[in-house]
């Protein structure tokens, strides 16, 4: 299912910048409060997630550093609002180095009359969707593919990302950011490129989750951008001094400046909001739908993967995105190409009008060497 992302029911506030980072608050004027998101901290442990089975049983597993999970509580009725998120079983205690999780999204037992809730591993849900793209590998025994590819598909498929704390300047920007009273989310720009978007349903939840921005993972690209551009280029909108004669004029001018900022930010974020996305439904809970989405992989455009919760009427209640780096986009693009041609490399080469050797080289350079037979890889001139 394709659609477009939009900030339905939300508006953009005035940005605050510090070093290479510009944080733009996203505001919600009347939070209904029937969907609340809380944080469950896992500490410094490695997580192994059984994607469709119990962990460590036979089946696909997702292995990553998982610092925290979100607990989403919701109520069906329109009247009863959840009174904050209750995190009954705060898991703390001894040091564990590996933590086992059962599935990315999992319902949790709730009290009889309390709000119902489920646990979700933020961003890992989206990342897993990205990694699972054409994960099964070739269906037909084409001669170029290695035995490993035929038997195990793309496994092990891996991507790299960096922690928020590694991005230079992000820590200070997050610490000194002044949270707006009605703020429910943030657009995070590093060196004027959109690094991630994060939206929750209720301002109180955002206040608690604000620092989780640092524990999230970001594209490797942004790590480099932050190193190369420690200061933001100058961007400002000023009051036009000549037209101001009265206080009312000044007020109007200030509103205009505010508008300028909103349009500037919308322009900078157009890579996320103006492009078609492919949506996959993960879970339906009452009036809320949890989905994850992938963009169309275009080598010349920004690509963001992510997950969201949307209310039946289209209001965005939760959003978290991840900016793919160029190498990641290339890998996904190549996989799409091959999969579209039923894994037949000759068809792909025909469509691209390139020689087979050329295309095989591209595959190897993108990191898919392990899918091809060793003698073919060896035969390619470097």
């Amino acid at each position, binding site marked *: 299912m394709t659609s477009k992302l939009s900030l339905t029911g939300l508006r953009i506030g005035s940005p605050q910048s510090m070093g290479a980072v510009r944080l733009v608050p996203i505001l919600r004027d009347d939070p209904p409060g029937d969907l609340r998101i809380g944080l469950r901290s896992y500490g410094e442990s490695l997580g192994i997630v059984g994607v469709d089975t119990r962990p460590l049983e036979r089946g696909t597993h997702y292995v990553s550093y998982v610092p925290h999970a979100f607990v989403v509580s919701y109520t069906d009725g329109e009247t009863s609002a959840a009174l904050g998120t209750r995190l009954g079983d705060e898991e703390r205690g001894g040091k564990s180095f590996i933590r086992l999780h059962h599935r990315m999204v999992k319902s949790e037992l709730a009290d009889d009359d309390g709000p119902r809730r489920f646990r979700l591993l933020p961003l890992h849900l989206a990342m897993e969707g990205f990694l699972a793209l054409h994960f099964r590998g070739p269906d037909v025994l084409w001669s170029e593919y290695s035995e490993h590819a035929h038997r195990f598909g793309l496994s092990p498929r891996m991507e790299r990302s960096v922690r928020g704390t590694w991005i230079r300047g992000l820590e200070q920007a997050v610490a000194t950011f002044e949270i707006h009273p009605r703020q429910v989310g943030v657009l995070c720009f590093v060196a004027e490129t959109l690094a991630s978007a994060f939206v929750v349903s209720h301002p109180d939840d955002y206040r608690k989750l604000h620092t989780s921005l640092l524990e999230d993972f970001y594209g490797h690209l942004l790590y480099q951008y932050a190193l190369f551009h420690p200061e933001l280029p100058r961007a*400002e909108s000023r009051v036009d001094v000549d037209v101001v004669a009265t206080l009312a004029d000044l007020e109007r001018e200030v509103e205009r400046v505010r508008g300028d900022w909103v349009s500037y930010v919308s322009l900078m974020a157009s890579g996320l909001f103006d492009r078609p996305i492919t949506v996959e439904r993960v879970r339906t809970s009452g009036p809320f739908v949890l989905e994850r989405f992938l963009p169309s992989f275009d080598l010349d455009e920004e690509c963001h993967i992510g997950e969201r919760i949307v209310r039946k009427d289209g209001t965005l209640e939760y959003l978290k995105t991840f900016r793919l780096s160029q190498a990641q986009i290339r890998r996904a693009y190549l996989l799409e190409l091959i999969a579209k041609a039923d894994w037949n490399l000759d068809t792909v080469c025909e469509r691209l009008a390139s020689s087979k050797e050329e295309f095989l080289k591209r595959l190897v350079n993108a990191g898919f060497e392990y899918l091809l037979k060793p003698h073919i890889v060896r035969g390619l001139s470097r």
Partner: protein
Amino acid sequence: MFVNACFACTGQREFYSDGTGQAVSIGFLHQYVLGNYRRLYARVLACGVNHFNQGLIVTNLLASGRDVRPEDRAEENALVTRALASLPANRAMRVLLELRRRRVSNRRTRAIVRKYLMDAPPEVRDFRAVKYRRAFRAAAIHAHVPFEGELAGLFLRGFCERKFSTPLFEAFRRAHYAESAIYELPYSIAEGLAAKHGVRREVFLERIAPRLTRNERLRLQDASLEALGESFDVDWERLPPTRLASYVLSRPLDERRRRADELRDALDRAVARSVRRTGVRFGRVACVLDRSFSSAGSREKRNRPLAVALAVSRWMRAAAAEYTAFWTEPVDDEILVTPYGATNLVRPIIDALRTEPELLVVVSDGYDNDPPTVAGQALELAPRLCPGCFVLHVNPVYDADGFAPRSLSPDVPTLGIRDGEDIATLVAFARFARGAASLAELEAHLDARVRAFLGGPAGPEEPAPAKTADVGEAR
């Protein structure tokens, strides 16, 4: 600019920058001014800059005595001696230790240290000798000051001395053996000895109560409430308003709500006293006060910017004929104010200009972000939109990168502020700075300040009984 920096900076961590950066930045600024404008540098001591910077200036001047011009020497000596005497004892001791650390031991320094340590009235000297034993001894030995009378026994012979005739020294000696003697000592010394004797906390607090200084009383409110079931009486009226505002902001919101009337009353009485002392009155005043999240300060200066804003607000309320306060997020009761939200300075500035004030004071750390950089422009436009209104931006935070408190706009006077009650001085200073910019007049103004500083009564500004003389800045 330098004076300005000296009003605000304390070398501590701030919301937007760390302590090291602050210390390096202000240290450089001091060295620069010292090297190029030595006379002015010394005279800044008379301008009422904060204690941290006074201490730094004294240290730097003494460390570079060779460079002073012969015709300025007498004035500089007088300024340094006077400044050292007017500093709270803990600050002055820190200056002496810093001199030792930097191995400054020229003849002038030794003479000034000797004068400070030994020429104080005997009871003050003995009190300092006991309360700041280690610093006192180290500074005296470093400056080759001979120990007079029983000081020699205290510092050189230790407990080999069998008996002192000075009551305080004798109490200090006996307190090592007898519990009853500890209650004659200053609180900070007695506390350690009480632990040695295993005195129960409630007994100790009850019996030491008469010896507590004002700040210690304020600090021990919670301890006494827990141990004795009632708080110590604090002489609210005599506390500096900003200090009291800091105390108010340190209380949990529940307690503030419960004691709102009491706290407001205490704050207003302190402010009223401070206003009476300056004798300044204003006409129609509006204040724009920043309560954004950055006014939470840092771990070292918790809520300091907000406390300054609160103190300025109460101060102006008492001193102005007509007063309106505009917080960045409206607040019902100022006593309950908390650091909250983004910095939207423009809206309150517009609202404030609507009241057509004669004086508009903006208290903010100079970071305005909702929307960015517009507040400065609004202030620039203020003279056109509201003729006859004097606009002043005071900033409680020193910006390490800019070597000055951060300003909202280059055209609006920005002054550093340490305590809310200094606002009257700053308004006068800003009016002066804007009206007469010539160097000669600045010199004349400084001359007057220096004369007043040197001619005033000796000792700390508020002479207190000798036993509680050290009204220290909280560290």
